[in-house]
């Protein structure tokens, strides 16, 4: 009998693939770490992370990630500040105010927006956003932290909306009917019941959005100017880790100091994002366990 015999093979395949999947993560972390190890033999971890200058191929090479790291953190922060209020507002609409027939088309639209490849966003940024910045702020060149932040905000917005709307629905839908029996208006319910209930969902959306923004490469690279400066002004130019890798990796000779330094930067980024994801995982567990109590 075919299926009796298949069972063993199927079960083994399924198990083996799961093990492989688990090992992929380990392999990624290990390899990136291994390739970056050499740089820490030349530069101390502290100097690497907090050194003030990134000049890997100068006559006097200096490998300091401080301005790069600061930009890596500043960009998603700017994006978050811009996107969060709008994401919450729009998510409320999609979860509780959207008229029935519009619901699915609009939600699909948001999903599609969340899936647009980032080069397309980058191209639009290059063509429309940068000249706009130049005109608005009379900048001599529109490439800037702000341009990157705005573009990232637009990119993560649909993603955050979709995460938040889902969690808002999950958090509030069981109380809708009860609230109605108390004769209160829809808006009253939204602000007194749904908003407080969605708090953790909103945090989750914000965290996930931030982590996306932090790892984003192509779009950001096309609008931030890529000068390794401290992000001390919104209109200043910056160079975050993903841009650094994309720009410099191509030319860093295999095994050179520059090459290892790039992997070092990549490892820092990887750790940052894994950290954020663990945080998110913990947060979601909190939310779920709260769900059980009620």
């Amino acid at each position: 009998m075919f299926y009796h015999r298949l069972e063993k093979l199927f079960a083994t395949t399924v198990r083996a693939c799961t093990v492989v999947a688990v090992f992929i993560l380990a392999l990624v972390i290990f390899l990136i770490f291994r390739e970056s190890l050499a740089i820490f033999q030349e530069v101390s971890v502290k100097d690497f992370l907090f050194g003030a200058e990134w000049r890997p191929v100068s006559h006097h090479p200096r490998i300091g990630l401080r301005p790069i790291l600061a930009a890596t953190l500043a960009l998603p922060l700017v994006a978050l500040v811009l996107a969060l209020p709008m994401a919450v507002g729009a998510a409320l609409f999609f979860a509780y105010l959207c008229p029935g027939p519009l619901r699915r088309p609009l939600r699909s639209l948001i999903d599609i927006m969340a899936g647009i490849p980032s080069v397309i966003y980058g191209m639009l940024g290059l063509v429309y956003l940068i000249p706009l910045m130049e005109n608005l702020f009379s900048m001599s060149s529109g490439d800037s932290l702000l341009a990157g932040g705005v573009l990232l905000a637009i990119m993560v917005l649909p993603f955050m909306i979709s995460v938040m709307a889902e969690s808002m629905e999950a958090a509030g839908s069981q109380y809708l009917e009860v609230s109605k029996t108390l004769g209160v208006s829809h808006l009253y319910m939204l602000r007194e019941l749904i908003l407080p209930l969605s708090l953790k969902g909103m945090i989750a959306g914000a965290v996930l959005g931030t982590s996306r923004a932090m790892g984003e490469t192509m779009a950001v690279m096309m609008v931030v100017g890529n000068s390794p400066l401290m992000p001390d002004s919104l209109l200043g130019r910056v160079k975050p880790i993903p841009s650094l890798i994309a720009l410099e990796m191509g030319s860093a000779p295999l095994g050179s100091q520059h090459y290892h330094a790039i992997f070092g930067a990549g490892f820092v980024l990887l750790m940052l994002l894994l950290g954020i994801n663990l945080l998110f995982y913990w947060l979601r567990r909190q939310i779920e366990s709260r769900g059980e109590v009620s």
Partner: protein
Amino acid sequence: ACGNGGGSGDTAAEDQNFDGELLFTGSSTLAPTISQIADEFQNEFGTWDQVDDSLPAETIQISVSTGGSGAGAKAVLDGTANIGMLARHAREEEREALEEYQEAIIGMDALLMAVNQNNPLGQNRSEITAEEVQNIFSGEWTHWNQVDENLPEEEIVLLVRDVGGGAHGVFQNAMMGEVDVTETAIEVPSMTGLVDRLMNNPLAMGYASFGVAEMHQDDLVAFVLDGVEPSLENILDGTYPVARPLVLVWNGELNPAEAAFMEYIKSEKGIQILDEMGFVPVQ
């Protein structure tokens, strides 16, 4: 074509190993030219046996990629490309890293100190000194009025190639010496991109490849540097200080297909395209 040293008995075995696809990687300055030549080559012959009847009847396929001169050297080193394109001399380390380093210089290029045609400085004068260039690119001077009191107090927007670009090293060595280029400069990942930004920003200054600048003569002002005009002759005889070679590098012997195409690059046709693209061919 390649030497027909092998007996005809080996042809079958050769056919098996024959590799009719080539990948060039490296200089963004050189890439458009090589792909142009490759395009002509493919159109003219189609299959390898048309080039040389000792080669099998496989379709000619030549891919060209960019990433800067550094990427070219690296790709040959890690074996991901057949031939690397460099818009500078290969560095000592790069030569040493390759066991059997081989190169061919196919042309010359220069870096012009250029500004937008509406740039205040460009409209005032046509000359610049090496010292001024150094002051500007090191970040000593940040506004145009520091270059010349009569100019408006507006920011100088510096455009440079990223560290992977051949131009980066050439400019550093020829103009800056030990002084670093300021961090406030905008890094553009290709020469065409750099020139494009130059054409669109009246406050910008940058170093433009002679070849690329040629194509946009009307939109740019290229300065005479320390009294030397960036002309064909001055570049060829080395009087213009920021000149650079266009180099193809590879490791070991060329295979038959590589050799056949290399021949074509050096042929009349190749030279003509190089010339059309604004570079100075060398034999």
